[in-house]
């Protein structure tokens, strides 16, 4: 049977709704703020045989869109055809599934006539999965074993039977077992709901129609992507950007992209990038591809979010590169590396299509953890990501205090943080002079200053852009660099490796201060209108 294009348009909306609803279920019922408030989670529908992403929720974390396909594939390989109704796998192996150990994936089949029809998957960032540093952003890690527990794909449900033993093992390896238990339940709820919705849409339209629709949507994304690539001029452009260091050795690491357009095909060649490093800014090949997917989706945002986007794209990644790490190379700081990859894609695209270009956003997740014990002995871990400026673009200034391009995360309200942890924010403000100058100015970064109110705390930061600022495009200037400082008895200090440090001790009354980067500028500064400059001055955006 052949599917008419109108029915396809109808089904597209239904599929997206299923994925969105799975997202919403987990966000509302999750325990840790990284999922509940920062939406560091994602759900989708995946190909029965290849695991490719077919449909993705709109509210989930963008980076997971690409990476989940590898996660589902890992389960397909592990199961080796031995799949039954009611099965559900759980794992966090980053070398198979991408990203880092904090991201736990649940993968569940939808079965028809004894065969897998499609997969549903849920991924969420858990609050603590063991390892050396609470919250698992350990800038000093040299092996994944220091970053947390590593769980290969194992069955959480076997033909519907819940494996309490598995949950017991997971719980025993976390500093925050209750949070883990709550998040796990939220993910199970989300998958159950997606499963019911898939069953009812299959009953309504029949297996053949649904299968055809899913395949057609993938083909459509590929067609659209080819059309977008064709609109770019043929040729090769290059862009390079740098990571400050890997947290172990204070040397910059290069991310280099040679981007070739040839008709409706694109080659993304990362061969000139640095080799794998000792510290945790390596990423697996699957993560690298997922990051390119996110970058391309930002540039061509009308192309639907599924595997078809990558069909016309060829990747060249050196097997020794820090962009194709294997076990046990540490990968905990993957966010920093993929943000830099998005930066190089933006810079390359700016050379091909200046009118479509965006300058680099603030480019660091700034994972900050403060942990200690209350006066009554209770353990607490505050772990959060912070915002910065977005890059300027051809139609205007960058957004002030936005979220990272790889996520749709919102920041928890400071009142919620102060109610939960013994801290007081002394400043929560925009950071003047942080946006890159240009015809259009980069968005402003932020200043967050936090005072400890009880006992002692151990502080760790995993950040970037302390040495290399976010770049402008089309002649625009760079944004301000990241800056972190912490108070000690004799005054303020800064981490020797700029934005990465573990084991900082502060005591009651002492503060930490984070000033995040602004976005890069767009176009030459001398082109900026006098009125815009005057308005910036009046608002105190520039001094």
């Amino acid at each position, binding site marked *: 049977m052949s599917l008419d*294009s*109108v029915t396809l*348009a*109808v089904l597209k*909306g*239904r599929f997206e*709704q299923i994925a969105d609803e799975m997202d919403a*279920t987990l966000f509302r*019922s999750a*325990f840790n*703020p990284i999922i*509940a408030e920062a939406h560091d989670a994602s759900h989708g529908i995946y190909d029965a045989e290849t695991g490719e992403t077919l449909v993705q929720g*709109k*509210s989930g974390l*963008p980076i997971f869109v690409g990476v989940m396909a590898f996660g589902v594939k890992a389960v397909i390989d592990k199961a080796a055809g031995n799949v039954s109704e009611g099965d559900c796998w759980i794992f966090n192996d980053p070398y198979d599934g991408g990203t880092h150990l904090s991201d736990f994936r649940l993968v569940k089949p939808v079965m028809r006539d004894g065969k897998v029809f499609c997969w549903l998957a849920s991924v969420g960032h858990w609050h603590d999965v063991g390892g050396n540093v609470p919250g698992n952003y350990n800038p000093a890690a040299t092996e994944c074993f220091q970053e947390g527990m590593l769980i290969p794909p194992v069955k959480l449900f076997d033909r519907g039977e819940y494996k309490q033993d598995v949950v017991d093992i997971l719980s025993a390896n976390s500093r925050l077992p*209750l*949070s883990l*238990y*709550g998040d796990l*339940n*939220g993910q199970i709820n989300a998958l*159950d709901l997606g499963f019911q919705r898939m069953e009812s849409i299959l009953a309504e339209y029949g297996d053949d129609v649904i299968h055809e629709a899913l395949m057609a949507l993938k083909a*459509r*994304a590929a*067609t*659209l992507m080819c*059309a*977008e690539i064709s609109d770019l001029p043929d040729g090769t452009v290059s862009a390079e950007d740098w990571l400050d260091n890997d947290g172990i050795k204070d040397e910059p690491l290069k991310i280099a992209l040679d981007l070739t357009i040839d008709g409706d095909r694109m080659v993304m060649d990362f061969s000139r990038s640095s080799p794998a490093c000792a510290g945790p800014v390596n990423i697996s090949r699957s993560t690298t591809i997922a990051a390119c997917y996110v970058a391309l989706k*930002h540039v061509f*945002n009308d192309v639907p979010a599924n595997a078809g986007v990558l069909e016309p794209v060829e990747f060249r990644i050196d097997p020794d590169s820090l962009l194709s790490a294997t076990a046990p190379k540490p990968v905990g700081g993957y966010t920093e590396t993929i943000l830099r990859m998005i930066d190089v894609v933006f810079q390359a695209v700016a050379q091909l299509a200046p009118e479509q270009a*965006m300058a680099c956003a603030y480019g660091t997740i700034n994972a900050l953890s403060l942990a200690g014990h209350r006066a009554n002995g209770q353990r607490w871990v505050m772990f959060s990501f*912070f*915002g910065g400026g977005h890059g300027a*673009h051809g139609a*205007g200034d*960058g*957004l002030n*205090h*936005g*979220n990272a391009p790889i996520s*749709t995360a*919102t*920041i928890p*309200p400071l*009142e919620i943080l*102060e*109610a939960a942890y013994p801290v*007081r*924010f*002394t*400043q*929560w*403000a*925009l950071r003047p002079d942080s946006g890159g100058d240009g015809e259009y100015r980069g968005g402003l970064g*932020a200043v967050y200053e936090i005072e400890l*109110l009880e006992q002692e705390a151990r502080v760790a930061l995993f950040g970037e852009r302390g040495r290399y600022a976010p770049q402008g495009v089309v002649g625009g200037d760079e944004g301000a660099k990241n800056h972190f400082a912490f108070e000690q008895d004799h005054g303020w200090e800064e981490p020797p490796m700029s934005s990465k440090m573990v084991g900082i001790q502060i005591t009651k009354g002492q503060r930490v201060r984070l000033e995040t980067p602004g976005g890069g500028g767009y176009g030459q500064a001398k082109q900026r209108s006098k009125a815009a400059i005057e308005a910036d001055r*009046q*608002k*105190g*955006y520039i001094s």
Partner: protein
Amino acid sequence: MSRYVIGVDVGGTFTDVFFLDQETGEVLTAKSPSTRGDQSKGFLTGIGMGVEDFTQIGTIIHGTTVGTNALLERKGARAGIITTEGFRDVLEMRRRDRPTTWGLRGSFEPVVDRPDRREVPERVLADGTIHTRIDLEAVTAEAKALADSGCESVCVFFINGYANAENEAKAVEAVRSIWPNDHVTAATEILPEIREFERLSTATLNAYLQPVVSSYLERLQDGLATKSFGGQVLIVQSNGGVMTVDTAKAMPVRTALSGPAAGVIAASEIAKAAGFPNIITCDMGGTSFDVSLVAEGEAALTAQTAIDFGMVVRTPMIEITTIGAGGGSIAWLDKSGLLQVGPESAGSDPGPVCYGLGATRPTVTDANLVLGRINADRPIGGALDRLDTDAARAAIQRDIGEGLGLSAEDAAEAILRVANAKMAGAIRLVSIERGHEPARFAAMPFGGGGALHTGALIRDVGLGSAIVPRFPGVTSALGCVVADMRHDRVQTVNRLLTDLDAAATGAEMTAKADEMETLLDEAGVPFAGIERRFEFDMLYLGQTHTVSAMIEWNGDLTQDAIKTAFEAAYKTTYGRLLDGIPIRVMNYRVAVTGKRPALDMAVFAPPTGEDPQEATRPVYVNGGWQDARVLQRLALPEGASIPGPAVLEQPDTTIFIDPGLTGRVDKFGNLIIEEV
């Protein structure tokens, strides 16, 4: 001398007035052009069309879009903010979000400019402890500076003010003592709830609206006074209840969705009387399609909504889900050749191609015209003489038909299918996705275009039926007359359930309810009864999103009763309880509703013996032309049964009954459309 009760809904184009004569039981409706700039003129003209002697009017209830428009068009007053040192950018930093997931091209302009956000020394901690006492000299100096620089209103907002409002109250007192007018908003008086951005945004929008809404209401009162009106004016709130003018002046942010809320309330009353307690209201305008769910006669409320990116209002509101699919939504083929409808809209100028005002891209209205659903010679609204069918057909053929290899008629049908699918998606979102069985619900279209699409909605979503009210165009004005009076309060508690003095909290909630009941008494409006509703927002320790649990109790409130209520609500929402994890009580909510006397919907009873002036017109359905009956809807008597395909025309809307469906006129003049 309170012969008349009058509902007035001021919309973008027309001011609709609904008159109820309490002596005769008769109703009358009137329509006058809205007067942009000063809506009070059209308001008075509209009332004057039905009643000459204003002393005979007892109550006027008003659904206003003055606040809504000021927010959407960014035409509020210049407002200032006085806030805690270190936090003047909370409004601008939002919750660190962005307007769209993909593409980083968003921007945001807060409604209060950075120089008008002033900091003063003060600090309260999360547990309510005062860390730094308020510096009142600084407060006074900053307030003076704001007033001198031209701010018309001001909002005082302090971090953790929800936990202890002492600093804020002192500062507000100091500001009020020197501020040149009444426009001083205290953030915790608007919303004493944890989450600084949401509280500040709501309070700031209140300050932003206050001068605009207050002066409008004053002009209204002055205009009424010159006509010797001596009754009461009530304003519809976004939660569907009404409030006094004084409350509306103090809390104008509660009028953000006043107009649409009135429509939903009317729809629910009409439907209840007709025996349909479960409906989904569908308001189709030129650019958008708004749906709301009414279950068992109760409209669904939401705690928070965003008027636009970063413009968050957190007060209880009728939950209205909006999608970009209206009569003016443009149909187009994307780069992969897939048919899309919207979100881009032709609006009303140039509007659809058939308006002949220069538009070239086909819209949903063009598709309806080409398929014979709309009468080309009698356009709704009265501004145009006739519609250009040929131009609409040519545009559809060129933009859609050629790409899909379809005839103009088949392409037009495809446009409707995709548009209907989007509308069905919105309906599914508020029904199926929330666990409501669609077969138990009826669609109620109001607004100009919705009644053309009901048949498709019944089939696509599996709704039981559709009910088209007798006057879809004046639904909101009617809603004003039947809306209940409602007050809401929220207070953040933020304690573990085991640490909560349940009895004291229960007593506090009862006291709040008593206070609000006094407000109801003071309004001088007759009520058929008063209802109280108590809720707790609760969560397991570690979660950040709450579940609301309704609770009733006799004697002292207990921890056990609260726990039972929470577990029941949690189970319904998520399925799995998490035994052994402590429960936290975040907020309590109290709502007190004065139930207004019901309106006897028999006033809409259809006439008997008139001639519905039957004609026929070809309509294109399911791939072929068929002859449809065309009838004058308002002349149809009770009990009339019209099988589809049929087109029913009336001045403010056109109804299409699809083949396989039948329309039946009930005793209240509603048209019930069902499967045969």
